[in-house]
């Protein structure tokens, strides 16, 4: 007895140590970027979240919920408080206030930067408990270890990537953990917890729809398999009732849970659950024959009423049809045809196989093995894991960014596989005291030992390799802030390209506080966050037409573009140009999307075909089409570019083409005000209207002719000395 107690203590101690070191590994492997660069917010969306968090901390919760942001989407503005998921910001504000309360006043930026790594520890803990329910604590520890360092999850949770996903995966795992517990025991407490965390998830990420559909799917499958029980009934109805009511409290979600088709499955299964429960009751009361007729009749009736009702409600507009993003998951061509703005985002591209291996390494082949092993047992909770695996494998294949939701279940299944393997082979206790089997020869023992040792050794070796792989991937692929770009000097020493911040800082210090900056939407959040200037469009992409306006301005000739931009009160235009240093993510490479998106709105004025050469190539050199050479984007990107070389021809290093001065021509409607060190960011000001009413082109022509005709007149100023 005492020995047992001691063993339990040792086990607890070991578990605690393992958890501590796992959290340590999870956090520290996410800190590469902070150590290499600095504590900085990454990429694009996090800048908005950061700005919103600052607003929340400065103005309080109620003002935050009612926040109307007039500094974006000029002149429309954005009802920011009602169109964002506040979970992320409120959590970090709570952390910030909490730390202040205990006497640790930390800068809100540092809270935001280190938010994701901190929550990855919680994810590991939740994954542990989830896997414990699926198999046992051994598998749980393995799964927690996997999720802590799997690159598929790290990709969205390194320090500085302050995005909704950073907290969402944690909440996803916690919700699922409580759901599995609830569904196994029928406990109302656990399903209430699941509902509460579901609410938290709804407040944090649009991907909550995944939970809204997965849990009903789980229930539906169980009912189909004839596994209905009162446990399921109490778990699901509690979760659905509380979760739905709670989720409707988020302003952005509002009445969606009862009006949008994305949520109808949950409602339908809720109804089905009542019917099945009633059927079960009736079945226990009447004879089988009678029950059969009742069942068939009522099922047919319910189905007819349900389907008709759904169609009627959709037709009369009480239920919103599916959202575009949802369509694009099922009909993979939908986005390409109907919503180019969704198709233009690189995160929404389909996934090639190396991405799977890159993000999960050997877990990717342990994963199907794990699913198969779960099939052999097929308990109720295993059905959940299988449904999750199949659905997410599909989603991850269709969209790169959904790799993120697949990774946790890969970790769980792979952990189940490895743990089962070790259950069989890592048991080194021999049945030596077993008298019945007789003496076991040394040779037999040796053979068994070899078997077990080789299996354990080789899988430990693979695990070891996995750790190296994860560290390498994290360090090389996922730790760049993308605001600051790492590069090398000619002698090989590391250098940083800091053009973005240089330009944004210039904007902040040198332009009027209410200046409006037009740029492609990718840079909207950064301009708002770093330069604090008003933008026309940003990464929120809620208004396709507004984005198309900017696209149209960029693809039109300069006089027309000037008109469009003036109409929208724009003061500055910002373009990203990578041709000088070979930065391939620049605006010219995104230009076709601008053309496509504006063609969607003005098919008569903008035609994608005209931007290609006659043989259908996308070129910038002498062979480029005239429409291309005339477009504002071309002019603003290459203006003065050949002057870096010989003044006649410049070499674009991204596209490997020679750009001629004569193609670029003159810039009459815009003037260059700032170009960053490596020419990455170029800023132009819209010229003032001509004081004597000429159009700017003829004014420019006139000035040039005048300059050609006249020698430079030297303005002599009268000498103004102090007269003594």
């Amino acid at each position: 007895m005492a020995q047992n107690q001691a063993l339990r203590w040792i086990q607890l101690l070991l578990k605690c140590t393992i958890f501590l070191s796992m959290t340590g590994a999870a956090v520290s492997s996410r800190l590469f970027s902070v150590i290499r660069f600095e504590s900085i917010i990454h990429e694009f969306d996090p800048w908005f979240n950061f700005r919103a968090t600052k607003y929340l901390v400065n103005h309080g919760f109620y003002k935050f919920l009612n926040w109307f942001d007039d500094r974006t989407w000029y002149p429309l503005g954005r009802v920011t408080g009602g169109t964002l998921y506040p979970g992320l910001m409120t959590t970090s504000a709570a952390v910030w206030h909490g730390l202040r309360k205990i006497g640790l006043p930390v800068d809100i930026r540092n809270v935001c930067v280190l938010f994701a790594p901190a929550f990855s520890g919680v994810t590991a803990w939740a994954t542990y408990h989830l896997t414990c329910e699926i198999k046992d604590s051994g598998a749980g520890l393995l799964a927690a270890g996997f999720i802590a360092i799997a690159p598929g999850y790290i990709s969205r949770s390194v320090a500085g990537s302050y995005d909704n996903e950073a907290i969402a995966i944690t909440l996803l795992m916690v919700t699922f953990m409580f759901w599995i517990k609830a569904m196994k025991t029928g406990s109302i407490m656990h399903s209430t917890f699941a509902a509460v965390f579901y609410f938290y998830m709804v407040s944090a990420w649009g991907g909550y729809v995944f939970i809204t559909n997965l849990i009903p799917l789980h229930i539906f499958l169980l009912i189909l398999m004839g596994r209905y029980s009162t446990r399921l009934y109490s778990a699901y109805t509690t979760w659905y009732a509380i979760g739905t009511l709670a989720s409707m409290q988020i302003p952005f979600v509002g009445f969606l849970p009862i009006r949008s088709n994305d949520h109808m499955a949950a409602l339908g299964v809720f109804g089905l659950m009542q019917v099945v429960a009633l059927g079960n009751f009736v079945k226990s009361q009447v004879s089988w024959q009678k029950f059969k007729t009742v069942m068939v009749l009522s099922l047919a009736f319910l189905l007819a009423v349900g389907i008709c009702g759904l169609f009627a409600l959709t037709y009369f507009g009480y239920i919103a049809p599916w959202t575009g993003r949802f369509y694009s998951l099922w009909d993979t061509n939908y986005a390409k045809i109907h919503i180019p703005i969704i198709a233009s985002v690189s995160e929404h591209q389909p996934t090639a196989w190396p991405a799977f291996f890159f993000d999960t390494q050997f877990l990717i082949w342990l994963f199907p093995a794990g699913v198969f092993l779960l099939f052999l047992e097929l308990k109720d909770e295993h059905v959940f894991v299988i449904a999750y695996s199949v659905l997410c494998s599909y989603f991850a294949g269709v969209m790169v960014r959904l790799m993120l939701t697949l990774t946790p279940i890969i970790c769980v299944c792979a952990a189940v596989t490895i743990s089962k393997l070790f259950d069989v082979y890592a048991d080194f206790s021999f049945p030596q005291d077993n008298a019945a089997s007789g003496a076991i020869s040394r040779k037999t023992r040796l053979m068994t030992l070899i078997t077990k040792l080789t299996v354990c050794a080789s899988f430990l070796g693979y695990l070891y390799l996995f750790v190296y792989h994860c560290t390498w991937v994290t360090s090389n692929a996922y730790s760049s802030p993308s605001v600051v770009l790492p590069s090398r000097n000619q002698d090989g020493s590391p250098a940083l390209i800091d053009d973005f911040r240089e330009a944004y800082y210039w904007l902040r210090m040198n332009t009027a506080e209410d200046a409006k900056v037009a740029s492609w939407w990718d840079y909207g959040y950064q301009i708002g966050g770093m330069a604090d200037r008003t933008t026309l469009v940003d990464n929120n992409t809620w208004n396709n037409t507004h984005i198309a306006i900017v696209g149209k301005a960029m693809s039109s000739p300069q006089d027309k573009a000037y008109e469009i931009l003036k109409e929208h009160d724009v003061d500055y235009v910002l373009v990203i140009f990578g041709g000088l240093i070979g930065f391939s993510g620049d605006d010219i490479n995104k230009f076709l999307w601008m053309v496509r998106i504006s063609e969607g709105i003005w098919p008569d004025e903008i035609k994608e075909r005209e931007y290609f050469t006659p043989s259908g190539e996308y070129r910038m050199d002498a062979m480029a089409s005239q429409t291309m050479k005339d477009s504002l984007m071309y002019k603003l990107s290459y203006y003065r570019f050949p002057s870096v070389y010989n003044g006649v021809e410049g070499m674009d290093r991204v596209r490997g083409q020679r750009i001629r001065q004569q193609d670029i021509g003159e810039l009459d409607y815009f003037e260059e005000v700032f170009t960053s060190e490596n020419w990455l960011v170029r800023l132009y000001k819209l010229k003032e209207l001509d004081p004597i009413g000429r159009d700017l082109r003829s004014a420019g022509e006139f000035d040039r002719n005048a300059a050609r005709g006249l020698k430079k007149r030297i303005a002599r100023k009268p000498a103004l000395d102090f007269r003594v």
Partner: protein
Amino acid sequence: MRVSLLTNLVAALLASVCAALSNQALAKEASKQKGVIKLTNANFEKVLGGQKDAYLVVLLTSTNPAIGCTLCAELEPEFDLLTESWLHDHPAGLSADGERALFFAKADFDAKKNSKVFVHFNANNVPRLLFISPENAFGTFSQINLPGEPGMTRVAAIMSALKEATGIADFELHQPINWGSIAVTAVATAVIVAVVRRNKALAAKLVACKSIWGLGTVFIIVIWNSGYMFNAIRGSQFAGMSQNGDAVIYFMEGQQQNQFGIETQIVSVIYGILAACTVGLITFVPYAANFYAKDKTGRPSPSKASFVEMILTLSFLITLYAVYSALMAVFGLKSSGYPFRLLRLPGKY
């Protein structure tokens, strides 16, 4: 003097009228060759030139396998479908209002027979789909964009482009009904239904069989995880050809965000073997050891059991190691700079 000028003029006019083919002649020419006029060095000036009032769609292509133009091969049935759909409704090539005529012509590259056609159109790459309108002078043409996605999407896109360019409204698509496929489906369904009705008990057993469901699910997961959806969405090429065209390339080297269709197949086989070995280690090996734990007479034979166990385990492990090494090597091809390898074959990589 004046007379000779007049005769010259008349002669020139006559010549131009004779040189160009009228709509009827074009229709005749087309019907001779199953609806598509074949352009050759001899006839192309006659077909394309002069004053006519028909729109012409010209496909410059090269289906010769030696040239290796996969897009040309893809386009071939689509172009035929387009032509047949047009001729199905308009056997004379005239639109319903009788005002506009549309004909289809094609030149499949052959250095001896039709090289001049390609020179005429300045074609330096194939396939090209060109459009000639009667309003414009001889030698002017415009190009029709070929969308990237193959099949019906492309046919529909070309058709709508043609409708817009010609102003012909009654251009409908007529897909030939594939009776063979329908028949096969019908027969197969009937056979399956009959078989199921005969062996109800067995069918019920199969439907309830966990392993079958498990295998099916795992199969789907494996192919989805090896980039099947990427191929489906992007319509990737099945495999590549080396520069000189004498070797097949299986992997797009150094490109992590792109792949050939065959890569999915290779990788899913690799994943399948690896997963099968792991499942074998977990379930099959203990089962086999248990099976041999007692010999035929029922006496325990631990030595034989552990021998079988060891052999099976080692063979699974070695397969696993070899295939996993292959996977790492393949991934190394895709991701340049990936530092980890397992087994290094001497010489290569």
